[in-house]
């Protein structure tokens, strides 16, 4: 396994070491990946290295289609340290067609008055100005 630091993920990263650090490498290749337990077949997003259902550590990477629907959201006008310059921004929870949920920001080009629960979205990798990488939810 090639070592990749997870510290490249997100505008602010709080951790750099994880067994699923390859997620970043896949993200740089334009793919948002989940993990699937080889033993029970359960799909995990965010990706996990370990399956608590059967205590298995045997997981495989699997690309998500990116098609998802908005479950809920909020537009923040107040931010924790490091995010003040981005205000206001909309934090969203969406459900992917594979059944897993994703927590991400809504793309800035979606206006607040057109944001509605149930709307179709597309989960997409996003390169940030500071050289880091993340994903966001864009208009489908």
């Amino acid at each position, binding site marked *: 396994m090639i070592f990749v630091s*997870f510290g490249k993920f997100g*505008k602010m990263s*709080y951790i750099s070491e994880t067994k699923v650090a390859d997620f970043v490498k896949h993200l740089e290749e334009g793919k948002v990946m989940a993990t699937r337990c080889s033993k029970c077949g359960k799909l995990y997003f965010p990706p996990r290295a370990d399956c608590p259902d059967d205590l298995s550590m045997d997981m495989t990477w699997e690309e998500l289609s990116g098609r998802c629907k908005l479950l809920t959201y*909020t537009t923040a006008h107040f931010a*924790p340290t490091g995010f003040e310059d981005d205000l206001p921004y909309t934090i969203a929870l969406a459900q992917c067609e594979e059944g897993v*949920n994703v927590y991400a920001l809504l793309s800035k080009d979606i206006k607040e008055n057109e944001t509605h629960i149930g709307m179709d979205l597309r989960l997409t990798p996003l390169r940030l100005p500071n050289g880091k990488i993340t994903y966001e939810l864009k208009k489908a």
Partner: protein
Amino acid sequence: MSVAIVGVGQTPFSRNCGISIRELCFEAFKDALEDINLTPKEIDASIICSAPEYDKQRSPAGLISEYLGLAPKPTFYAESICSSSSTGVKVGYSFIKSGLHDTVAVIGFQKMSEISSAEVQERMGRGADVQWESPFGTMMPAGYAMYAHAHMQKYGTTEEQLAKVKVKSGKYSLLNPLAMYRRAITLEECLEARVIASPLKLFDCCANADGASCVIMTSEEKAKKITDTPVWVAGIGAASDTLSTTSRTNLTGLTCAVEAAKQAYKMAHMEPKDMDVAEVHDCFTIAEIMAYENLGFCKPGEGGKLIEESQTYIGGKIPVNVDGGLLSKGHPIGATGGSQIRTIVLQLQGRAGKTQVDGAEVGLVHNIGGIGVYGNVTILRR
């Protein structure tokens, strides 16, 4: 053998209290002990409760225990963020029930002004899953705001209904001398306030505070010697949910609260309709509306209607947060659960003054840690 609460104490909740955490705890401890003529010598064990990320002091239990004159009696530390002192009460119950210790002091505190605003702001972002959610700039109000939008979408709950929770809180805050904010707020003020995290506005959110609370618990035998008005722990429930929002399956209610309530009602052999008065964790207005539903005071989706019909005021179906709640008292994280328990104990002892619910015999405390991560429900009876 039943377990009793015999004494309760609390400091005023305030912004920038200007004293140290040991002194805050002393004031709450003194308040509780003097009320029942007990001395520190009669305390067999202490449980100290706070959220440690706000403390300069590492391992505060030892320090607080020393300052209260409790060494060499054992002291323990309990933490479940905003529900730390309810967790402390559950641990205290287990100690007494098992016979390990007879009389236990549960002391909750938080001095949120001990660290700078910038430090508070930095910690706020780390309350979520730091690997997968904090990198998106989330914080507490955003978490509850996402529940609010989902609740509004599914049930038609309105911003006016949310605001009415704060209007009630403001009304009762005028009667609570220990509350940080003691003023009535109009519906218009609530609706016109600046947005914090849509749809939650300034008055939909509680505020950080400094303060301490103390709950003295003891065995049935000792309780009867200490006081003529012991309050009994009838039911106690605790549950957890995923820390991450991503893994939640219910976005219109707190599953940990439903589960904790189920346990507490079962243990007490009681139902929601048996409750005469309740304290719920209204860190945000939407949290109180979801609490009505999760505790069974109304059906899922009818929480907005319950406040609209004023059923949670004194004189209504179930008076809730008649001490002003977190929204007016302020929320010194580790002290909050103990403060809620104090309010219910005073109600059941008939000592709640102008906010007394006539004939209150059974009361409930709902105290939540994090964004619905730690659920705690305690049922007390006269």
